[in-house]
C-alpha cells in the first residue's frame, strides 16, 4: 500500500481563491446530486481539501460565494468537523487512535515512540513538514487495535517496530 502524500498549497497562495475549470466542473457535478446548494457544502469542502490540502479562509470565502452562503456560516461548518485541516497539514498526518481499545493495546507506547523518533507530540508537526501527529477518537477499527490512520489509509495492529518501518518508508517516498 502506498499512502498518498498531502501537498498543501501555502497560505500566501490561498488568500484569494478562484476555482479553475476542472474544479467548477466537479462542483457542478456535486450540485446535481443535492436538492440545495447548502446541502452540497460538505462534499464541496472535501473537494477543496483534496485539491488544496487544507481549508484556508480564502477557500471558505470562495466556497461561500459559490454556495450563496455567508462565509461565517461555512466557517462554522468547517470548524465543527475536526477532519478539515484549518492550517496547512504536513505531508503525512499520523492520526493515532486514543480511544479505549487502542489505548489498552498500546496507543500510549506508540505515542511515546513517535515523540522519541520524530520529536513531536499531539498537535505538533516536524520542522521539515513531513509528519504531523494527531490524537483521534475511535477509528472504528478496534479489531485491529492499536490503529494509526495516515492520511487516508489505516495501519492496524501497530507496534513500535512496524511503525519504524512505516515511517522510514514514508520519509523515503516523499
Amino acid at each position, binding site marked *: 500500500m502506498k499512502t498518498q502524500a498531502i501537498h498543501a498549497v501555502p497560505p500566501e497562495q490561498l488568500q484569494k481563491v478562484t476555482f479553475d475549470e476542472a474544479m467548477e466542473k466537479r462542483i457542478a457535478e456535486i450540485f446535481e446530486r443535492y436538492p440545495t446548494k447548502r446541502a452540497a457544502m460538505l462534499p464541496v469542502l472535501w473537494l477543496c481539501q483534496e485539491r488544496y490540502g487544507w481549508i484556508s*479562509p480564502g477557500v*471558505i*470565502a470562495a466556497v*461561500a460565494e459559490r454556495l450563496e*452562503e*455567508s*462565509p*461565517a*456560516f*461555512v*466557517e*462554522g461548518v468547517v*470548524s*465543527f468537523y475536526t477532519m478539515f485541516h484549518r492550517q496547512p497539514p504536513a505531508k503525512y498526518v499520523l492520526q493515532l487512535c486514543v480511544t479505549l481499545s487502542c489505548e489498552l493495546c498500546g496507543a500510549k507506547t506508540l505515542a511515546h515512540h513517535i515523540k522519541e523518533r520524530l520529536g513531536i507530540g499531539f498537535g505538533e508537526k516536524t520542522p521539515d513538514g513531513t509528519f504531523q501527529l494527531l490524537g483521534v477518537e475511535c477509528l472504528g477499527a478496534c479489531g485491529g487495535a492499536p490503529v494509526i490512520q495516515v492520511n487516508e489509509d489505516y495501519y492496524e495492529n501497530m507496534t513500535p517496530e512496524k511503525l519504524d518501518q512505516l515511517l522510514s518508508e514514508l520519509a523515503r517516498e516523499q
Partner: protein
Amino acid sequence: MPKLTIDGREVEVPQGTNLIEAARLAGVEVPYFCYHPYLTVVGQCRICMVEIEGQPRLAIACATAAADGMVVKSATSQRVKEAREAVMEFLLANHPLDCPVCDQAGECLLQDHAMSEQGGNFASGMLETRRTFPGLERRLLGPHVIQNQNRCIHCSRCIRFTQEISETWALTYKNRGNNAYIDTFDGRPFDDPFSACAADVCPVGALTVREFRFRKRAWKLSSTPSVCPGCSIGCNIWIDHHERIVYRFTPRENPEINATWLCDYGRFLSESLNQQDVVHPKRRLKEGWQKLPWAEVFRALALDVKAAKTLRVVASGYMSNEELYLARELFARRLQGELVVPVFMGEPRKMKNGRRQWLYSQSALPNLEGAKRLGIRTVDEEGLARFLYGAADLTVVLDPQAHPFLATPEAVQLVKVSPTVVAARVDAPLLEAATWVLPAASLAANEGTWVSSTGKVQRFAVAVAPPGEARPLWQILALLARALGFADLAVTTPSQVFQWLVESEQSFAGLDWNTLLGAEQTSYRERQHVG
C-alpha cells in the same frame, strides 16, 4: 382556542401558543434562555422543562404547543425542579460567576434564574478548573459589541438574530462541544448594522454593548417609553436614564414596527440627547448677547412678532404633532404667516417588524407623516432655499436641525438679512445669524406624539427634566401664544392639544392619549426577551 391548566391556573390561549407564552398568560413564569418570541425555537437550553400530565417525560415548554385539556406543572413539580437544577449545574459548571464585575448583572437571565428559582442555593460539584477562552474574554467583536466568551451559555440567540433578523449571517459557532465559541468569519469585525441587538438578545454578559458598558448599573436606570428619532420608521424605545442623564436606548416591543429590535444608528442617538449647548434664552443687541428671563423674552418677542407684517416660519419633521398643531394655529392661522416643514431623505434605514417584514424609511424625519396629516406645506432643499430667499420682517426657525441645508453658509447668509428667532438645543451655524435664541429641550425632556411612516400615531413620554432654562417646544409656543393674546392656545400639557387633534383632524379621530404609549405592562416581559 385551547384551554389548559398551568400550575393549577386555568387559561385559554390562541391556537399555536407555546407553553412559555401560555404560562405567562396564566401568570406563571417559566424560565428560558434560548427561547425568544421573535426568533425560531431551537430548544437548546432545556431550562424550560415542564411536566405534562399523562406524558412520562418532561417536555420543553418553548417547543410544546398548548393543547386543549393539558394539565401542566412548572413550579409545582418536584421533577421539574430537579431537572432545572441539573441544567443549571451544567450551565454554571463553567460559568465564571463574575456577576460583580459583569455589566449584564441585574438584567441577566442566568443570574435571575439562579437567584429566583434556585433561591441562590447552588453548590457546584465541579472539581476541575473552569473552561476558559483565553483571548476571547474582553474582545471587541465589532464596533459596538464586546465579547466575553467565558460567560456564553451557548443559547445561539445571537447567531439566530444575524441569520433570521438582520440577515447578515455574520455570527457563527466555531469548533464544537465544550470548545464552541461565538465568532465572525475569520475573526473580522462584527459590523452588522443591527449589531447591538445581538448583545440585547444575549441572555448573559457574553455580549455587551460597548457604549453602555460600565457606565451605569442596570438596576439604577429608570426606563421611559419613547420613540426613536432616527428616521420615519418610528421604532419604539425605552429611554434608560438616571439622574437626568440618558444612558441608552433599548428596544420597546412593538410587533407592528420593530418587534424587539433597533438599528445601531438609531440606538446610539441616545447619547446625543444629553447635549444641550443652548441653556439660556438670549437676544442679540448691538453690544452683544443679552440673557433674559423667559417672561421678558415672551413680552419682548411678542412685540417683534406683532410688528412683523411678513412672517415666515420653518417648522420641523422632528416636532411632535402637538407642536406642529400649535405652530400651524399660531403662525399660519392667527398671524397669517407662512409655514413650511423641510423634508430630506437622509441615509436610508430599514427595520424588521414582528412578522419578519422589512420596513424602509421614507425620510430621516420621525414625524414627516404628522406634518403631512396636518396639511403643512413640505419643502425640499430647493424649496427651503427659495422660502428663505429675500427679506421678511421676521423669520422663525423652530429647529435648526430640521434640514441639513440650515447648517450651510448659504442658509446663514439668507437668514442674516432679516431678524430671526431660532429655537435650538445644540450649537448650529444658524445661531450666528439669529436675533433671538431660545433653548429648546431634547426628546428626552419632551412629550408628544409622532406618526410613523406606516401611519401609526405613537406617543413619547418625558424621561428627564430639561437642563438649564431649556423648555420643550410646545411650551415655548404656548407661552408665546399667550403673550400674543391668544390665551386659548396657552395649553399646559400637550395632551390638551392632542385632544384638539382628535376632535378636528380626521386622521386622529378616535385616538386616546392615555393608551398611545403602548402597553407599559409588557415591559417586564420584553426585558426578559431582550436579555
